């Protein structure tokens, strides 16, 4: 699970790298396109975090070369504030996602996880939120290191929410994840499962909360930050 960050602002690179490393990913940092080429040739990375504006050109130019060497590689563009339309051109250039600076740390980690969730993603580390840990490979859920057991639907709900930790998961996509494409599921059914899961997590002292965002869905986040 290796990430390459291409970012020329030293302070930014240091902070972002530390944030990512803290979330259980291995990360290398380079500051130029030339160094990035070198690093990509040498090491196998699963994800590139590309700054657009680099001292020796547009970070997007790395993308093509990286895809050529490692077809499965994921790419997230980090665009500067003053490059609003870069978002579009970043995606056009073939990036999987983009994030506009300044970004929230939680958001970046969520995007990185989302990126790996897509087909072609490699083995992921367990997602840790508060005292809760969710291993996406095995669907093992633990609180403070001890495995807990959840019902199938609770597990699917938690799995979906935890993959979008700190971000809203829409009710529609939750319904699809949990019930498949059945249309006759009532909203109250989902609310019931959510309430049950909330209670369980609270009882277990998982230090996470599932918030309701009315009109949108649910958001799982670490408690009381």
């Amino acid at each position: 699970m290796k990430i390459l960050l291409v970012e020329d602002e030293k302070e930014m690179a240091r902070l972002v790298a530390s944030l990512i490393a803290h979330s259980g990913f291995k990360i290398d940092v380079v500051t130029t396109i030339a160094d990035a080429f070198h690093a990509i040739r040498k090491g196998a990375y699963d994800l590139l975090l590309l700054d657009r504006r680099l001292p020796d050109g547009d970070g997007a130019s790395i993308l093509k070369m990286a895809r050529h060497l490692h077809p499965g590689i994921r790419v997230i563009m980090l665009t500067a504030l003053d490059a609003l339309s870069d978002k579009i051109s970043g995606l056009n250039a073939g990036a999987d996602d983009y994030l506009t600076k300044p970004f929230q740390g939680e958001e970046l980690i969520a995007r990185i996880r989302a990126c790996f969730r897509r087909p072609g993603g490699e083995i992921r580390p367990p997602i840790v939120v508060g005292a809760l840990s969710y291993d996406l490979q095995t669907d093992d859920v633990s609180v403070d290191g001890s495995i807990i057991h959840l019902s199938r639907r609770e597990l699917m709900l938690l799995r979906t929410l935890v993959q979008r930790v700190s971000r809203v998961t829409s009710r529609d996509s939750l319904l699809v994840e949990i019930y498949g494409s059945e249309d006759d599921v009532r909203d109250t059914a989902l609310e019931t499962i959510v309430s049950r899961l909330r209670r369980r997590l609270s009882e277990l002292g998982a230090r996470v909360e599932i918030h309701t965002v009315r009109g949108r869905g649910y958001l799982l986040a670490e408690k009381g930050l």
Partner: protein
Amino acid sequence: MKSLPLAPRVVGYLIVAQLFAFFCGWTISTALSMAGIGVFPSSWDSLAISRAQRQAIASLAADEDGAVRITPTQELLSEIRRAPHMRVAVFDKFKQALPGSDPVLVSILTPVVGISPTHVHFALPDDDSFAPEGFMAPMRTPFGQLHIAVHGQKFQWNDLIDAWAFDIKVLAAYFATAAVLSTATAWFAVRNGLLPLRQIAREASLIDMDTLGNRLTLDVVPTEAMPLVGAINQALERLDVGTRRQRLFTANAAHELRTPVAVLAARLDAPREPNFEFQLRRDVWRISHIVHQLLAEARAEEQTLPLDELVDVAASVRAMVDDAALLAIRDGREIEYLGPSGAVFVRGNKVAIEAVVANLIDNALRAEPRGGSVAIRVNENATIEVIDHGAGVAEDDRRAIFEPFWRMSEGASGAGLGLAIAKELVSKLKGRIWVENTPGGGATFKISLPRAVL
């Protein structure tokens, strides 16, 4: 192309024009004379007079005892062969015909010479007297001033040049005077006429970024130069408007950012509050919303932001709500989306719309009391409502909050930030932004955007 100074050019044109005028005038008057319309009737052959006179003078020669006589030169002889009726007579200062003079001319002219005429046109008895082809005048010769008479000379083409040169010689003084005067006049007129341009140049040289409001004085310049000066003034006007707009934008940007930056600084200095980190994060987010909006506005201003994209505002607003959700929750507020789960299409720009909506949501979360809920509604008619339950906006302030540099009264601090720029952006999107009361208290900001016709 190299540009020549105007004055010498005008002088040059004038002199050429005068020569041409003389040539035309001469040709016309000569033609009129020949047609018998002029004051003195004339004929082609009369143009040969001056050549005939020269030939006569050239034929004058003195013999051993100093007596002058006409001894025809080869040239005169061949001329006489060409014009068999040509006659030449020369009278000395005693009015006596020199030997070799034509007897017919002598007999006719002897009485006339007696009165020493300055010149005389004459005809022989057999001539058509309408245009007398005989001519006698006193002329300078190597043997003093003698009366030379010619008759029966015949025109040939180079006589035209002769005749012309002769007339120029006669009119040389007039010519010289005209040339000198017109040169001086042209020089003076051009210099003097363009003098106001120097004043304009002085005025223009004083215009810089601080005095873009100045205009060049239009009524001092000659009419011919008015379009130029007028066009420069119009260019200045456009520059002025553009610069003013840009300065306002910069001032606005600084103003909009000063408050949140001041809050951020104060927060760092104040004793740590329990949710210090979160508060910092929120401050940063607010600044970045404003910067986003400023940049969208700057781009719209320089027209690099396409403003007619097809945008699903419902999807955009849902994304904005999702983005703000964590922040709202951490801040002890709730955020709620009221609107269709499907699409509502407008014509506009996604980035610009999102910047404005994000800013409104940020303002609303700030105004919302702790524990309250901010609602964002998207209607099918492409209006977006951002509803809070805070202090609301007083009736009197509802227009003013969208003006640049507007500050709401103390107590409602924070609300209103970025609204001037939001308004600019929305009007660029051909939409409208305004504020109403939330039933039960609070402010509801509404944006209406042009619906896309699919």
